[in-house]
């Protein structure tokens, strides 16, 4: 107390550090509920999935044995349904991502120009994204109906087919089925992709186009030399998000085809084994395998990003 005057600066320091410490405590108090949720619903289940994947756990059976990498050996060497599911999912991913990106770009460029009703257009474009995938799949399943579907009717009126056309039948083969199912995803996601790209397009200043025009660049040159390079970051992020979504596709496959073996996605197969079949050990190994496959894609994309930046 006697050193009051001379100790003023240290006092300020003390005040600051107590304020800092108390804010530190507050920070942890604020973050803790979220961390608890994350730990309980994500980290612990993830660890549990890894653990179960090395066991022969089954639903309703209390005895669980450690089986090492048996499940993984089985799913890579003996499980042809899983390898088919991986192929189906990867083909589906490539088709949908390519179409959604190209069509989304076209739609974004069209909507980016000034016209009456642009606001309405953007609102309409949001609707397919907002609708549950379950619903959009049902809408298309009805349009694909062999006898009373609108596609059959149109093909009929155009004289291309006579009688019925079974769009969803197994006899058309897996590639046809993937095309049919991709069309649903492309319809649902292209407008959304366009909206993401549109946000990127609007960041490009108009002066740059003016300058390009003065220099005599035509529309196509403007697109490839100006728009595309400037849009690259937005495009890459959108591509990553879309690819990850397509790789884990569940709803559209489950609602349209159920667990038809030749047209299952990876997620549908894993869910069916796990929940329907009650094979918690093997099903968990499938979950981990899907996780690793998706991780490979992430690593590839991230390294492309790094190369771009360098």
């Amino acid at each position, binding site marked *: 107390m006697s050193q009051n005057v001379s100790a003023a600066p240290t006092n300020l320091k003390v005040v600051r550090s107590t304020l800092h410490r108390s804010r530190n405590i507050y920070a942890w108090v604020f973050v803790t509920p979220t961390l608890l949720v994350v730990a309980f*619903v994500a980290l*612990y289940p993830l660890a549990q999935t890894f653990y179960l994947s090395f066991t022969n756990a089954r639903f309703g059976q209390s005895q669980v044995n450690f089986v090492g990498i048996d499940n993984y050996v089985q799913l890579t060497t003996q499980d042809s349904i899983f390898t088919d599911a991986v192929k189906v999912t990867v083909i589906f991913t490539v088709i949908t991502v390519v179409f959604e990106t190209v069509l989304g770009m076209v739609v974004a460029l069209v909507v980016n120009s000034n016209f009456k009703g642009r606001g309405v257009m953007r609102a309409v474009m949001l609707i397919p994204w907002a609708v549950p995938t379950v619903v959009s799949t049902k809408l298309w399943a009805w349009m694909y109906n062999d006898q009373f579907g609108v596609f059959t009717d149109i093909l009929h009126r155009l004289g291309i087919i006579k009688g019925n056309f079974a769009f969803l039948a197994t006899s058309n083969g897996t590639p046809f089925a993937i095309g049919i199912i991709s069309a649903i995803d492309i319809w649902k996601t292209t407008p959304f992709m366009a909206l993401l790209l549109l946000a990127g397009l609007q960041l490009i200043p108009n002066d740059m186009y003016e300058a390009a025009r003065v220099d005599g660049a035509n529309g196509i040159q403007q697109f490839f030399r100006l728009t595309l390079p400037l849009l690259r970051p937005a495009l890459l992020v959108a591509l990553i998000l879309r690819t990850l979504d397509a790789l884990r596709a569940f709803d559209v496959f489950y609602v349209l085809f159920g667990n038809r073996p030749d047209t299952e996605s990876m997620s549908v197969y894993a869910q069916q084994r796990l929940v329907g079949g009650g094979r918690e050990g093997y099903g968990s190994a499938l979950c981990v395998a899907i996780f690793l496959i998706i991780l490979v894609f992430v690593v590839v994309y991230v390294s492309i990003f790094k190369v771009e930046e360098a």
Partner: protein
Amino acid sequence: MNVSSLKARPQYQAVVTRRTLKKIASKGAFYLLILIILVYIIFPFYWAIVSSLKPMTELYSNPLTYWPNHLTFDNYSKVLGNNLFLHALLNSTIVSLLVTVISVVLGSLAAYALGRFRFRGRSFILYLILSMTLFPTIAVLGGLFQIVSSLHTILYDQLTALILTYLIFTMPFTVWVLRSFFQSIPVEIEEAAYVDGANPWQIYYRVMIPLALPGLATTGLLAFIQAWNELLFALSFIITPERQTVALAITNFQPQGGQGYAIDWGQVMAATVIVTLPLVALALIFQRLILSGLTAGGVKG
């Protein structure tokens, strides 16, 4: 835009008319393109509405009618008289609302701390949350199914299982978007409150929350839509038909009094229209908010 017209050079009549013709043609092509895009987006919805308004005899007759000859609301009254479907609507409303409230309340607290406080472990938590936004839910299904099914009375076949597990995909996104929202609020406002003697908790709910309302609305809406649309967990954790969510109810739709046809598509279409309406309304009303949230989470993420 009008660089060429500003130059005002003399032009021949023929050139002018050819130019205006070209302009009209390209404008026509442009609007045709807009029309094609609109029809492509809207047609499946139009077809669902038209199908839901047809009587069964017209729905199942060839050639198809593109506007109902006989309008009927039969399908709607059947669907709305379907107890299981009404249960599903109620269940989805409860689950989606609670998920939204929990994610926004807990998420905004964490987002405020992560956006404004410097503390040890902050960057680790940020990386954890960012990696979770890209996390495929199927990867945790094995462990989650085991946990849920072992907690019989409180989780298995209960809506609580959905409310808890849906936080996996709503929380990280909410925290991530709100953090950037809090960071965009000027620090001076906060400092002024500290000078006035407010503690961080008071600043959070008296100062930051009112300023962040648009961000809270955006993330809340997105959480609601995601929870309303979810299928994988609902299908895995719910068995009792009365506890189904709408996504599940539409997937396993059992029509009332259907005759001769395995699936009564008229009722299915009526059900999809009913489920879709609230989402279309939300999307149209909050278009700007949703888009700003999506680009904040997507483009910056």
